[in-house]
């Protein structure tokens, strides 16, 4: 900037000197011709003409003029803004908060909802699920026999492909540098071609026929994802064709997929592991329709020009026929119809969609408040500057020139606030990264969207500044003299201008009430969640989640050879009070099992029980010591329950309720023989646990059945599922749980090197994590609503302070005529109360309309909770009146003598 100014200055001086020498030469000439020096100078100057005008005209020939004028405006604007630092800082901060928050939340919405799938023509991809009269069976996807029927009969689809997520379990793959964990999905041969995906290296699975099955020759093939290829095989291009091992099975790598390929959506999220794909080779089990047949998720591609509705109608008609092939009436009821959903849509749960949109809505509200706030600031400022504009106009500044000056000022403000807003957006995204990523399944990096930022800023500038600068334009349109003649600098606002100022403040108040109510509701939700009786202790409990390398234990009894020594070793570690194994701790998200009861009888009660789904856990007998579950009836497992003793199960109160209905005494279930345990034993119920929140803090207790790990033998029907996939170790510690992590890790490593990669969390963290979405929303809304409150209070203060400054003369006269100070103070506070009251009426209405958007987050509090409204009203009134005290005091202390003297 400085060098530019110097440059302009030098050129100007240059020109002045050039013209001066011209005159000097002329004078010298004239003197040499015999004129007197005085005459000569006068003559030369007369001949030369108006120096200033010539200088100006010449100066205009330079190409720099426009730039120079801009430079002048810029300098002037910076000086003006620098002089009123408070104003500048407030406007920049206000806009930055609004723009930053909105930009951050837009980034989230964009990543979650707007990013199109990177598949060919994703609009034609649909997910198909079978569903029955009782709605969809969550694990309910289709058996191959049904898929084959669809393929043969339907005309609306180009292709049907299917896949299996393999229970989202962790697999052990032999990479270049030893065994690593991966996720694995099994896919039909036509899946990648249907999605329009081609391998980066190698070939796709070989199709057996058009049905999607993979050739048996390819049964032991595997395709690597880019991540697996890079992380585990060092991006070696020669890897295709080589043999590797997964869970002990030898597999041939046939292809590597390109970097962007993620399938199934969210698979990278299952365990945070790279994915590999196995082929689906159809077998004998696929020829049946009973519950032993493999069930697949189905994706299909609509033909071009086929509408979604007509495809759905067609498939439903076919399905009603397909369902007849089910001989068991109970099974038939589960598959009587199909549901189609656009694939892109099916990936994002309704809850997530609502959650992201409502958070985005909240940030947009904050943006609106910041716009209104800065508009009212600018507005007040412009009205005070009317005289400045009038003076400049009278001195010959063109209207365009004054306008340009104002535009330059707003441009500076918006550039500054954009930069600061970007910093805010980055900070919000960074600070909430963990919450956002886990709650909304975001797989791309969260970087603020620059183009959105620019668009938003333009919108802001357009909105805010056009409202604010309007009075300035008004001045430019009228004649300057009128403005100048009005005299006293305190003439100020007209009545209508004051009304606009008040309206802006009321708008701010009502908008921020909306945010405050939302925030209040979420805080109440968090409070309620924290005070839910979980039914177990969480303090001083450390949890290690292990992935079990069961393939290493082929032919051995893991209960005796692996788990018992492991837990004994853990118990002996210093600082451990008690420790227990369990397949998944309550509220955990590692490996949950759901058990579907299938009694074979056909009586009404049996049919009803076939509907029952229950949480299923295999636990150690020490579990009660660790978590302190309450027993309602009977006993928990103890050391006497062994592989040879009679098999026992423990259920919970919700199970009893689901099994017997509401009215039976829980003890009635004791002794009931529920399920077969292994070839020799049937298990009986020995105890009933009191209810506990095992799925989520916000959800009531689900039916649950527990078996004891020491009782499980390799021939038990539960052995593979319960012991072979994942297991948690819960440890009750005498000290701070996290201190024990290094020691425990060593113990696990000693049991099996694969366990060194286990993850450790404290139970308190698990609980906290389980109400993550509410916590995230509450934290974000606290920030948004807090900023909104501050902005609004600043707005109230600003407007009142401005009024007081404007009315000083009037107030002075009033005081001179005998008005009490308290009366003057009351005048200002009354004004504040009036604005607050009006804002409150509108705000509560708005809040009532908008808080339904928050329903998805709320727990134990209604969206129209009156107490939250009252609390918010009190908070706002207290804040608003506090903000008005300073201007009120200033008004009361106006010195009447001074005021009248200025006349």
């Amino acid at each position, binding site marked *: 900037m400085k060098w530019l100014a110097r440059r302009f200055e030098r050129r100007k001086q*240059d*020109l002045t*000197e*050039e*013209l001066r*020498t*011209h005159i*000097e*030469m*002329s004078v*010298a*000439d*004239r003197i040499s*011709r015999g*004129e007197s020096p005085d005459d000569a100078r006068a*003559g030369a100057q*007369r*001949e*030369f*003409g*108006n120096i200033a*005008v*010539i200088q100006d*005209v*010449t100066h*205009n*020939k*330079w*190409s720099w003029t426009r730039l120079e004028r801009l430079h002048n405006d810029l300098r002037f604007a910076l000086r003006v803004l620098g002089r009123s630092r408070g104003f500048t800082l407030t406007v920049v901060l206000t806009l930055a908060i609004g723009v930053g928050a909105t930009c951050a939340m837009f980034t989230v919405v964009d990543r979650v909802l707007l990013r199109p799938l990177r598949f060919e023509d994703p609009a034609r991809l649909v997910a198909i699920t079978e569903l029955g009269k009782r709605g969809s069976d969550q694990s309910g996807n289709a058996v191959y026999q049904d898929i084959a029927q669809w393929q043969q009969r339907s005309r609306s689809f180009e292709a049907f492909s299917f896949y299996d997520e393999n229970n989202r379990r962790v697999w052990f793959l032999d990479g270049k540098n030893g065994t690593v964990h991966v996720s694995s999905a099994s896919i039909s041969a036509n899946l990648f071609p249907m999605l329009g995906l081609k391998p980066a290296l190698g070939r796709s699975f070989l199709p057996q026929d058009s049905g999607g099955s993979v050739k048996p020759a390819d049964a032991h093939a595997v395709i690597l994802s880019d991540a697996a290829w890079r992380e585990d095989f060092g991006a070696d291009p020669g890897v295709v064709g080589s043999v590797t091992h997964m869970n002990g099975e030898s597999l041939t790598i046939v292809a590597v997929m390109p970097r962007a390929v993620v399938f199934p959506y969210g698979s990278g999220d299952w365990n945070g592991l790279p994915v590999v794909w196995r082929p689906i080779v159809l077998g004998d089990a696929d020829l049946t329709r009973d519950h032993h047949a493999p069930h697949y998720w189905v994706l299909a591609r609509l033909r071009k020009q086929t509408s979604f509705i007509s495809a759905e109608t067609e498939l439903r008609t076919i399905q009603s026929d397909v369902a007849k092939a089910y001989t068991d009436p109970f099974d038939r009821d589960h598959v009587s119809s199909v549901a189609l959903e656009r694939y892109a849509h099916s990936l994002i749960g309704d809850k997530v969609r609502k959650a992201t949109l409502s958070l985005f809505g909240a940030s947009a509200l904050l943006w609106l408040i910041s716009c209104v706030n800065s508009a009212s600031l600018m507005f007040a400022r412009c009205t005070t500057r009317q005289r400045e504009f009038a003076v400049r106009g009278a001195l010959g500044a063109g209207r365009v020139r004054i306008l340009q000056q104002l535009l330059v000022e707003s441009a500076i403000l918006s550039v500054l606030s954009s930069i600061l807003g970007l910093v805010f957006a980055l900070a919000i995204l960074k600070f909430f990264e963990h919450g956002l990523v886990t709650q909304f399944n975001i797989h791309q990096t969260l970087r603020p969207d620059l183009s959105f930022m620019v668009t938003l800023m333009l919108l802001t500038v357009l909105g805010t500044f056009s409202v604010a600068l309007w009075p300035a334009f008004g001045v430019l349109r009228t004649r300057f003299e009128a403005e100048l003649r009005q005299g006293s600098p305190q003439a100020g606002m007209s009545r209508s201008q004051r009304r606009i100022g008040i309206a802006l403040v009321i708008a701010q108040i009502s908008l921020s009430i909306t945010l405050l109510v939302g925030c209040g509701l979420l805080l109440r939700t968090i409070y309620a969640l924290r005070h839910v009786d979980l039914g177990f202790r969480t303090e001083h409990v450390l949890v290690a989640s292990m992935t079990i390398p069961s393939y290493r234990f082929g032919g051995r009894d893991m209960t005796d050879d692996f788990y018992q020594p492991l837990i004994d070793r853990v118990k002996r570690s210093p600082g451990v009070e008690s420790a227990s194994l369990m397949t998944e701790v309550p509220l955990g998200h590692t490996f949950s099992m759901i058990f579907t009861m299938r009694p074979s009888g056909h009586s009404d009660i049996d049919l009803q029980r076939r509907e029952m789904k229950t949480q299923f856990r295999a636990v150690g007998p020490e579990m009660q010591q660790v978590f302190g579950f309450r027993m309602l009836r009977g006993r928990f497992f103890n050391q006497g329950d062994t592989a040879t003793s009679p098999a026992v199960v423990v259920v919970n109160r919700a199970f009893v309720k689901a099994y017997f209905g509401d009215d039976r005494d829980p003890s009635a279930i004791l002794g009931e023989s529920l399920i077969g345990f292994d070839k020799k034993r049937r298990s009986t119920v020995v105890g009933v646990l009191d209810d506990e929140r095992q799925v989520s803090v916000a959800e009531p207790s689900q039916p649950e059945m527990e078996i004891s790990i020491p009782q499980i033998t390799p021939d038990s029907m539960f052995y593979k599922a319960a012991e072979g996939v994942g297991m948690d170790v819960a440890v009750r510690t005498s000290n701070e749980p996290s201190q024990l992590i290094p020691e425990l890790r060593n113990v696990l490593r000693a049991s099996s090197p694969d366990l060194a990669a286990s993850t450790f969390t404290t139970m308190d963290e698990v609980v906290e994590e389980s109400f993550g979405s509410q916590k995230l929303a509450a934290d974000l809304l606290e920030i948004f609503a807090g900023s909104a409150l501050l902005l609004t209070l600043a707005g109230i203060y600003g407007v009142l302070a401005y009024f007081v400054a404007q009315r000083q003369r009037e107030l002075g006269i009033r005081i001179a005529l005998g008005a009490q100070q308290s009366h003057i103070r009351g005048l200002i506070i009354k004004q504040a109360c009036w604005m607050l009251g009006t804002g409150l009426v509108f705000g509560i209405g708005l809040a009532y309309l908008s808080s339904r958007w928050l329903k998805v987050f709320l727990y134990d509090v209604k969206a129209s909770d009156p107490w939250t409204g009252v609390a918010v009203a009190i908070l706002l009134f207290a804040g608003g009146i506090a903000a008005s005290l300073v201007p009120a005091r200033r008004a009361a202390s106006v010195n009447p003598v001074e005021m009248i003297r200025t006349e």
Partner: protein
Amino acid sequence: MPGTPPYKNKVEVLQGTLDMLILQTLQWGPMHGYGMVQAIRLKSSEVLQIETGSLYPALHRLERQRWVKSEWKITDSKQRAKVYKITALGKEQLLSDHERWQTMVRAIAAIMGPEKAQS
């Protein structure tokens, strides 16, 4: 007012010919602004008087177009002055201006005829 010819006796420089006159003057050698005014006045036998109000804007415009360039020099009379010089680009321009001028003069002469117009 001795020494100052009445303004009306001067012939106004024809529109668009000022650039050409300046360039032509500079053909004779580098010169400063005052020198140019004097040179043109003498050459035209005191008929053409260049207004400084037109000269300097024109000079700066020509410089921007790179037909002339300028430099501060000490004159014979020991005075610092900004001296202008014609550039190669300016010479080309002068040539084409000159041709156009001659065409124009012939055309106007053909219209006006050899006789003097009667008043």
